[in-house]
């Protein structure tokens, strides 16, 4: 995958540790609530609630006071919105009508929501034939025009507020039913529902315990928006004369009464119309805001700040493809998933970065590619790619010099576009190629990664390819330019061993042919040992050992590296003995203490390990290790 300002890949596995993710979510939530639309929505809804509570108490009397001397007046100082046919003040009546209008809307929404949720949930409980019948009914209702459904119901249920509320409720129900059905279907396919079924949990309990709680959130969000819709619908019904009947009045009724006089005194109709509109807007904005606050990725990407870079000593290495000095990635809340990492890579070198989830290996890759998600902060003493500072490179330069391959090829490919088109776009955007040339190169590159019949495959959509073929296509995409560095983040984790073997072979071929360096990130030390020239082991954000890959089996020094190797079963493992494991868990990025981060899980740990952190020091040719027990 090319790094490109327009198409930042988001499919990073385990890139953000939990702490960072939560902080980010909290921060984005704050941003959502401070947006202008959220503020306007909040203020409008608050105003409506206050109006509904206080309106009748304050203006109730004024709204009912009949004044024979002031019938059907227009705007005056005494009556800003004029008066009605009994001389009652219309401003007071509009303000008082708020409570009734909002109460009716709330009732209609609740009726719609309950009816809809029940209808939508029924198919998950009923036997197959009944489920089909209900689904068909919902489909038919969704296709039926809402207002007609409302009027139809209102006419049957009888003229007046009750009929209108029922009508609007019935009109809202199909939308809720459809939503519930879709959401329930997606949860019903979850593994935990399958597990409950195997345990013999009855269907209605599965519905109540598993399905409904997991779909409640989007349903409640829709509820807020439906409230706005119901308000408008009820006003519409009253306006058509189907709703509230005198002497009761809501905004729709006032609008209906005022409409006859609109050519003489437009203000008498504008008052209620404005309030209906404001309330509708308010509830819709509030619903929008709730939905956005609930959505996981709401903040959008922002440039991660680079503050006070620590200066690196010495001259940059002119021969290195990648030179990283003191790279640190941190998130708000004292969470620092990458701590002062340094790494130098030579052309054509394959370096494996290995560690458990949460060790910071994926974030290291993200930081090199400028992909650390907001609100992460990246600092470094030096970060150079192909002899130039990455900070000074344009998106285009970085896009051709660096290629990235992620675990899930589907996340790097747009499912709606043909494979060939996506590849050629890279060359058109970054290298200024003509469409025809780019197309030819795309087919050539696809052939290069051994996709059979590349010209035909170029015309296919990503979903038509197998997992291994997709990953090949993503690698081909990286080869559209002339990358100096390829970063592959768990590229074979989602593939099975036979396909994994092929992709590893392909990556090696690509490196030999292009002379690019490859940074291969994996949690599987056996895969890393097989593919790479050099292995860098990370633990809790730091490099704990660096060694040639062929020394892994016999010459690993750090207790963590040794434990990783020992815990891996191979084809000669003694089956009569338990596998060696590593007791305990890796500390979270916010909880790494002063000493060696591995001390709590290490059999060799002494008091010194717990209080004083070992630096990464040279330990034999091409080897470095950070461990007191090994080096002293």
């Amino acid at each position, binding site marked *: 995958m090319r790094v490109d300002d327009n198409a930042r890949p988001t499919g990073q596995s385990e890139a953000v540790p939990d702490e960072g993710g939560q902080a980010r979510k909290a921060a984005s939530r704050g941003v959502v609530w401070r947006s202008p639309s959220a503020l306007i929505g909040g203020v409008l809804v608050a105003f409506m609630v206050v109006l509904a509570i206080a309106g009748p108490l304050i203006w109730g009397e004024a709204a009912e006071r009949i004044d024979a001397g002031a019938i059907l007046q227009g705007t005056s100082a005494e009556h800003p919105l004029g008066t009605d046919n009994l001389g009652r003040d219309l401003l007071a009546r509009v303000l008082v009508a708020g409570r009734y209008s909002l109460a009716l809307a709330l009732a209609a929404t609740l009726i719609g929501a309950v009816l809809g949720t029940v209808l939508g949930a029924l198919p998950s409980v009923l036997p197959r034939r009944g489920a089909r019948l209900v689904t068909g009914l919902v489909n038919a209702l969704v296709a039926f025009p809402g207002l007609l459904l409302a009027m139809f119901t209102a006419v049957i249920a009888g003229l007046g507020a009750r009929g209108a509320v029922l009508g609007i409720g019935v009109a809202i129900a199909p939308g809720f039913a459809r939503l519930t059905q879709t959401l329930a279907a997606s949860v019903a396919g979850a593994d935990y529902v399958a597990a409950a079924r*195997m345990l013999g949990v009855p269907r209605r309990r599965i519905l109540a315990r*598993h399905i409904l709680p997991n779909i409640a959130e989007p349903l409640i969000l829709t509820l807020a928006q439906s409230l706005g819709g119901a308000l408008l619908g009820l006003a519409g019904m009253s306006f058509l004369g189907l709703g509230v009947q005198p002497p009761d009045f809501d905004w729709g009724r006032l609008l209906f009464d005022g409409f006859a006089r609109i050519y003489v005194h437009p203000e008498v109709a504008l008052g209620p119309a404005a309030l209906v509109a404001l309330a509708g807007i308010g509830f819709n904005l509030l619903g929008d805001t709730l939905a956005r606050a609930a959505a996981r990725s709401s903040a959008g990407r922002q440039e991660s700040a680079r503050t006070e870079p620590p200066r690196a000593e010495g001259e940059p290495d002119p021969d290195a493809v990648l030179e990283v000095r003191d790279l640190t990635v941190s998130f708000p809340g004292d969470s620092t998933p990458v701590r002062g990492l340094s790494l130098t890579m030579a052309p054509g070198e394959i370096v494996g970065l290995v560690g458990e989830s949460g060790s910071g290996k994926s974030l290291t890759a993200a930081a090199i590619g400028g992909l650390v998600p907001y609100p992460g902060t990246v600092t470094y003493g030096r970060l150079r790619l192909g002899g130039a500072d990455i900070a000074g490179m344009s998106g285009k330069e970085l896009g051709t010099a660096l290629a990235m391959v992620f675990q899930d090829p589907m996340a790097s490919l747009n499912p709606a576009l043909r494979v060939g088109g996506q590849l050629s776009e890279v060359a058109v955007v970054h290298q200024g190629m003509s469409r025809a040339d780019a197309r030819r190169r795309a087919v050539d590159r696809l052939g290069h990664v051994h996709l059979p019949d590349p010209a035909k495959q170029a015309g296919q959509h990503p979903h038509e390819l197998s997992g291994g073929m997709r990953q090949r296509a993503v690698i081909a995409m990286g080869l559209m330019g002339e990358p100096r560095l390829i970063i592959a983040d768990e590229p074979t984790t989602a593939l099975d061993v036979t396909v994994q073997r092929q992709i590893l072979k392909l990556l090696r071929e690509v490196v030999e042919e292009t002379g690019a360096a490859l940074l291969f990130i994996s949690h599987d*030390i056996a895969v890393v040992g097989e593919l790479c020239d050099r292995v860098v082991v990370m633990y809790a954000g730091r490099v704990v050992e660096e060694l040639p890959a062929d020394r892994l089996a*016999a010459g690993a020094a750090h207790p963590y590296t040794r434990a990783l*190797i020992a815990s891996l079963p*191979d*084809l000669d493992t003694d*089956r009569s003995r*338990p*596998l060696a494991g590593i007791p305990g868990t890796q500390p979270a990025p916010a909880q790494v203490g002063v000493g060696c981060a591995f001390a709590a899980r290490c059999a060799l740990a002494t008091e010194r390990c717990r209080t004083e952190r070992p630096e990464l020091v040279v330990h034999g040719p091409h080897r470095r290790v950070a461990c007191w027990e090994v080096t002293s």
Partner: protein
Amino acid sequence: MRIEGLSVRYGGFTAVDDVTLDIPDGHVLGLVGESGSGKSSLARAVSGLVPYTGRITGAPRVQMVFQDPYASLDPRMTVGETVGEGIVKRRRATEVPRLLGLVQLPAELAGRYPRELSGGQRQRVAIARALGGEPALLVADEITGSLDVSVQGAVLNLMRELRDELGLSMLFISHNLAVVRYVADTIAVMHRGRVVEHGPAEQVVGEPAHDYTRALLAAVPRLRG
């Protein structure tokens, strides 16, 4: 337990094609094959989650542990509620701590939510839930596939201990032959919906009879040197 002439079809596509396998009591059958070979479909058929043709005899209660411990626990239920799901109410208070103990988790974890647990802990919870159904056969579908190597070892050890202590029969599925070899008594190799080789674990790994088994063996990543 015996699987006889089992086939699973999705529309016109045959995922599992006439498979016959025996799993004696207290025996672990390892099932290997690449993705699309039909091993997961076979697991789901045995667990009663997909319709099949053929006969399954001698396994009245089957429980399954799924690959992804992040998707197989209901995020809105506590560990205790999840583990106690298949247990009658009056026995729940005593059974849940016992099951958590079986999978070597502290009983205090019962009040926690899945999001507070690591991947390995979640997988143990999923195993405890399956054990709560008192299975005659436990189906484990790639249960270490999404775990770190350091955690994988502990979960594999646990599966072997459970077999030894409870005499549990198991259908253990993985695409990694080294993992299957460590846990299973016999290994069946699946390829394109059919079982192409079936025999004692050491024999399948040591003297593979089928070309596809040899290809699988060659693909297992190994450290050099």
